[in-house]
C-alpha cells in the first residue's frame, strides 16, 4: 500500500499547532476570568470550539497520511515510544494525587492528632481532635458527611472496567486475525462499558452531593475523593471518546492486521485507565 516504505516521513508545514495553542489560550483565559467572578462564557465556548476543531483536523490529517501508507515501520516505532512516555507522564500526574492521599492519611492527620513530636500542635490548636479516616479535618470542614462505600456501585464499576479490558483484548485479537465483525462488536462493547461506567460515576456524584453531604468542601476526604475520581473520570471519558473514534475508523475499514498503531495506543490508554481505577478502588473506596 505504501510508496515510501523506506523513507522517514517528515510533514511539511502545519498550521494546526499554533491554532491549538490559541484555542487553549482563549479557553484558559476564559476560565480564569470566570474563576475571578467575571462573565467569560463566550471565551470559554470559543476556546473549547477551537481546541476540538483543531484536534479533529490535526488527527484527521494524520489518519489520512496513515491510510495513504506514508508511515513506515520506523515512524510507527516513533509513535509507539511517544505514546508510552505520554502514558508515563500521566502515571506521574496520578501519582501526585495518590501521594496527597497517602500523605494526608499517614502523616498530616496523625500529626494534627498529636502523634510524634506534635503533642502541642494538638493541644494548642486542635484540642480534642483524634486522627481517623475518613476525616474532614479538626475543624469539621463542610459538616457531617458519610463516606462512599466500596461494595455498591464502585465494586460494580470495577467489574465493568475489568470486563472492558477483556473486550478490548478480544477486539485486538479479532483485528489481528482479520475478523472485522468481531472487532466492531467488541470495540462497541468496550466503549459502551466505558459509558456505563461514566453513568454510574455521575449517579454516584449526585448521590454524594444530595444524600451523603459528601462534597469537595468535605475536608481532606472530600478533596482527595473528588480530585482522584474526577481526574480518573475525565480520563475514562477521553478514553471512551478515543474508543469511539477507532471504532468508527474500523467501520470504515481502517487498520490492517499488521498496521494499527492508533488501535494499540487507545488500548494501552484504556488499560492504563483501568489500572488507575484499581488503585482508586483499593485506596479511595475500600481501605
Amino acid at each position, binding site marked *: 500500500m505504501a510508496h515510501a516504505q523506506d523513507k522517514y516521513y517528515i510533514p511539511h508545514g502545519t498550521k*494546526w*499547532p499554533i491554532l491549538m*495553542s490559541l484555542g487553549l489560550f482563549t479557553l484558559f483565559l476564559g476560565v480564569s476570568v470566570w474563576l475571578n467572578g467575571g462573565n467569560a462564557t463566550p471565551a470559554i465556548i470559543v476556546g473549547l470550539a477551537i481546541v476540538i476543531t483543531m484536534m479533529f483536523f490535526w488527527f484527521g490529517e494524520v489518519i489520512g497520511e496513515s491510510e495513504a501508507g506514508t508511515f513506515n515501520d520506523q515512524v510507527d516505532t516513533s509513535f509507539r515510544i511517544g505514546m508510552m512516555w*505520554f502514558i508515563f*507522564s*500521566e502515571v506521574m500526574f496520578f501519582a501526585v494525587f495518590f501521594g496527597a492521599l497517602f500523605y494526608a492519611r499517614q502523616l498530616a492527620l496523625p500529626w494534627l492528632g498529636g502523634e510524634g513530636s506534635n503533642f502541642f500542635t494538638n493541644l494548642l490548636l486542635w484540642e480534642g481532635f483524634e486522627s481517623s479516616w475518613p476525616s474532614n479535618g479538626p475543624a469539621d470542614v*463542610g459538616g457531617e458527611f458519610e463516606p462512599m462505600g466500596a461494595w455498591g456501585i464502585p465494586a460494580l464499576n470495577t467489574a465493568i472496567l475489568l470486563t472492558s479490558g477483556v473486550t478490548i483484548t478480544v477486539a485486538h485479537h479479532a483485528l489481528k486475525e482479520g475478523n472485522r465483525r468481531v472487532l466492531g462488536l467488541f470495540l462497541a462493547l468496550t466503549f459502551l462499558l466505558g459509558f456505563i461506567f461514566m453513568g454510574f460515576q455521575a449517579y454516584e456524584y449526585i448521590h454524594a452531593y444530595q444524600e451523603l453531604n459528601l462534597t469537595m*468542601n468535605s475536608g*481532606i476526604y472530600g*478533596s482527595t475523593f473528588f480530585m482522584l475520581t474526577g481526574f480518573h473520570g475525565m480520563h475514562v471519558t477521553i478514553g471512551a471518546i478515543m474508543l469511539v473514534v477507532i471504532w468508527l475508523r474500523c467501520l470504515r475499514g481502517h487498520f490492517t492486521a499488521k498496521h494499527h498503531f492508533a488501535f494499540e495506543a487507545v488500548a494501552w490508554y484504556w488499560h492504563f485507565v483501568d489500572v488507575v481505577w484499581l488503585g482508586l478502588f483499593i485506596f479511595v473506596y475500600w481501605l
Partner: protein
Amino acid sequence: MSATTTHDEHHDDHGPAKGIMRWITTTNHKDIGTLYLVFALAMLFVGGAMSLVIRAELFQPGLQFVNPDFFNQMTTMHALIMVFGMIMPAFVGFANWMVPMMIGAPDMALPRLNNWSFWILPFAGTLLLSTLFMDGGGPASGWTLYPPLVLQTGNALPFAIFSVHLLGVSSIMGSINIIVTIMNMRAPGMTLLKMPLFVWTWLITAYLLIAVMPVLAGGVTMLLTDGFFGTSFFQAAGGGDPVLFQHIFWFFGHPEVYIIILPAFGIISQVIPTFSRKPLFGHDSMVYATASIAFLSFIVWAHHMFTVGMPLAGQLFFMLSTMLIAIPTGVKVFNWTATMWRGSLSFETPMLFALAFLFLFTIGGFSGLMVAIAPADFQYHDSYFVVAHFHYVLVPGALFGAIAGAYYWLPKWTGHMYNETLGKVHFWLSAIFVNLTFFPQHFVGLAGMPRRIPDYATQFADFNAISSVGAFGFGFSQLLLVYVVIQCVRGGEKASAQVWDGAEGLEWTVPSPAPYHTFEEPPLVR
C-alpha cells in the same frame, strides 16, 4: 534501519516557506531550534529587567523605587520567567538544533508535535506576564508558590496556574520528542555509548522532565481547587497540610534544577575536548555520573525544607542523600579537568565560558554542600547565602553553559565566524560582573540578610551596593551578546565545515551553515 526522508507531495524539496508563515508552520528542527533560542534570548532581557528592578531597590537600604508588594512580584516573576521562559527553552533550542545532527537523523521524530511544543510558549508567557497588569498584581509568593501565601494572590492566581500548566504541556511534549528522536532515529552504528555527551545529558534531562512536570501540574491544580473550589489539600483545618505542597513542589523542584544544569554539562563536555584537542576523558563514566545525578535528584527534595519541622530521621536522610550528589558531580569536574591535562589548549570564547563555568559552577557546588548540612542550613535558610548559591549554579553555571554553546555552534548555524574580539570582551565583562554581583551576596547572607525583602539593615549596605553595580554591569554586557549574534547572522568571515580544528562529531561533517535538511541519507558511524 533506514532513515531517509520524504515529504508529502514534494519529492524535491525547495527549502522553507517564505515570510512569517515559515516560522509559524515550520516542522523543521533547525527552524524550531532557532525559534526557541530567539524566544529564550528575548526572555533573558525580560527576566533580566525584573532582576534589575530588584537590584535597583536594593542598591541602598530603605524603600526607593517600588513598593514591597511589587518587589515581591518582581522576585517571583524574575524566577518564573528565567526558569520556564529563558533557560529551559534555550536548552530545548540547543537540543532541537543539535541532537538530530549529532546522531545523524534527518529531523526530530515528531515534527508537528515539535512545532506545538514551541508555539505553546509565547501564549503561556503572555498569560504569565499579563498578570502584572491585573488587580492585585502578579503572583508575589516567590516562584515556589507556597500556600497559604500564594492563595492571597489577587486575580492573577488562575492565570499564573494555567500558565504553569501550559508550560508543563510544552516541556512534556518537547521531552517526549527528544526521547523518541534519540531512541529511534540514530544513524546506523550510532550505539548508545557512542552518542556525544550533549545527546546523553538531554536524554536523561528529558526523562526527568517527563517524570516531574506532571507532578508540578498536579500540585498547582490542587492550589487551584483549594483557592476556588473549596478543597482542603493545603489547609490544616480540613485535615490537609501546607507542608504537603512544599513536598510536591520540591519533588518537582529538585529534579528541575538538574533539568536546568544537565544540558549545560553536556555543552561543556563538547566544548572542552574541542579546545583541548583531546577526546573527553572518561566518556562512559560521564554518562553514568549523569544518570546517577538524575537518580539521586528524586530522593533529595526535602533538603529545601530543613526548617519546616521535619522528623530527625528525615533530616538525616535528606542531608546524606544530598551529599551523595557531590560524588558524581565530582567525577564530572575531574573528568573535565583531566580532559585538559596535557591537551593542546586554545582559548576561544566558547572555551573561556566553559572554563569560567568549571570554576564558578564548582563554587556554587561547594556552597551547595554547605547548605546541605542540615544543622548549618538552619542559619543559611532563606538568607542571601542561598540566593548566592543558586545564582552561582544558574548564571555562571547554566547560563554560561548556554552562552558557551551559542558561541561554539554559531558558525555552524549561520555559516559565519562571530567576532572573536567582541566575544572575548563579552566574556570578560560577564565573568567579572557576575562575580561582582553574586559573590558579595555570600557575605550578606552569612551575616543574616534575608532574601525576598526590599529593605535591609544598614550594615549590609556596602555589599548590596557592589552587588547592584555588578548586576547592572552584567545585564548591559549581555547586549553585547545580542550584537555579536546579529552581526554573525548578517555576515562575517565564512566558516568551514570543520570550524574548530579540534572538533569531532557528525555536526562538523556537514557544511556551515548546516543545510535546511541534514542527513536525508543516514551517515555511517564507525
